[in-house]
């Protein structure tokens, strides 16, 4: 079981979600985040004073999938989220040791 975490541009969320459901991923958890990276923020003026918006709005998407699906998921996300411009984001994969569905108590692959 792996946790695939992707930090993407917010307006790509719908596309990514669709391509994930096309390949059969059923569960996703999404969080609004702010990103700092190579892509820089912008400076605004407010009443003559500078106002640096140095973070960028991003969306973090987490999905736990079986080990053998990881590559497919990465590909789906990469294809859907890619704009070719700086700030497209990252995908991280990390291990999950256990997974439980609260409603039924099912565990492991059944629970995904």
């Amino acid at each position, binding site marked *: 079981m792996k946790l695939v975490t992707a930090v993407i541009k917010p307006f790509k969320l719908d596309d990514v979600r669709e391509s994930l459901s096309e390949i059969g991923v059923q569960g996703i958890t999404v969080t609004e985040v*702010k990103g700092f990276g190579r892509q820089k923020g912008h400076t*605004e*003026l*407010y*009443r*003559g*004073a*500078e*106002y640096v918006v140095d973070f960028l709005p991003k969306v973090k998407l987490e999905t736990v999938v079986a080990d053998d699906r990881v590559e497919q998921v990465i590909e789906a996300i990469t294809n859907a989220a890619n704009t070719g411009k700086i700030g497209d984001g990252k995908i991280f994969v990390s291990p999950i040791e256990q997974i439980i569905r609260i409603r039924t108590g099912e565990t492991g692959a059944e629970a995904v």
Partner: protein
Amino acid sequence: METPIFELQYALDTFYFLVCGALVMWMAAGFAMLEAGLVRAKNTTEILTKNIALFAVACIMYMAVGYELMYDKGLGMFLSGIMGDGVAGAAAEEKASYAPSADFFFQVVFVATAMSIVSGAVAERMKLWSFLLFAVVLTAVIYPVEGSWTWGGMDVFGLYNLGDLGFSDFAGSGIVHMAGAAAALAGVLLLGARKGKYNAQGQVVAIPGANLPMATLGTFILWMGWFGFNGGSVLATASVDSANSVAVVFMNTNMAAAGGLVGALLAARLLYGKADLTMVLNGVLAGLVVITAEPSTPTPLLATLFGLVAGVLVVFSIIGLDKLKIDDPVGAISVHGVVGLLGLLLVPVTNDNASLLGQIIGAVTIFTWVFVSSLAVWALIKATLGIRVSAAEEYQGGDLSECGMEAYPEFMSQ
């Protein structure tokens, strides 16, 4: 006893005062919304509390002390004699052609306006109760004393008479607005800037207001209320002459606001390349303040131009005060003080009864009195109760520390 014609004049003038007074009362809501929109979310409940509470304080203190101090009408303790009619004269001799309580109602809302100016400038760091204590003194004494020298017609400490010197301030660019700004300036100087407003490198850091629709609503409310403020200051409407004058005042007040808006919009556009809404709002107010000293004599074109100049000036004034590290979250000192002074100085351009010298002496007199007495009061409060919240409270916001409740408790903030 009175002729039917007189009865009608009396009734119409009284009604006109009451309608104008209600519009000026409404300005209190305008200041509250403007300031609530221009502070950060965490100080919103507190600034709302200050704004609505100061209005009540102003009404009570002006009834208890201020009105008699300013006009010396002999109405007795707590204006107990004010419920008679203007025809008979309150405590005899002076007769008015409208109800005395309508006059009080119209005057009392002006006091609140002066105090509202202060709340914006000291926002986001001044203690609530110290602020209200100052409000008690300003509305009971400081404002009425300078009011007695101007609209009250009395001599300045028995020394000279502003009216005789050719001082003229129709509806209070100086008497109300610059006075409020002077009190605010004194407070800000003793209070210091908000934490984080000027960074280690000495640069100005922007602290954006949390709710611009509220700030815009507040400006619209003030724009509307100002028709009562200036229009009511003609003090009569029940004749062809006075009706014309009131109409001209409405028209010019509106044109000056429009001019102020355009001036600030263009200045902000040229300086920053963007249409800074908060500057636009300040521009509207600048136009309104500048015309307040004399809205009855300029042509509509001139009123527009005066507004335009005020709108440009206010932008530079705000930037300039920031450079001086005078931190005024809503721009009140620029809008009401700097532009209020400009308004006074422009009076002689269209009103032959005013002299530039008189205007200058008047402005200096008002400013000196209000600034010095306010400074003394603020200093006294500072030495006793303190005027500034603690650093921790400032970080957390006045809403929790002073009022115990957030303005927008359910919304996540960044």
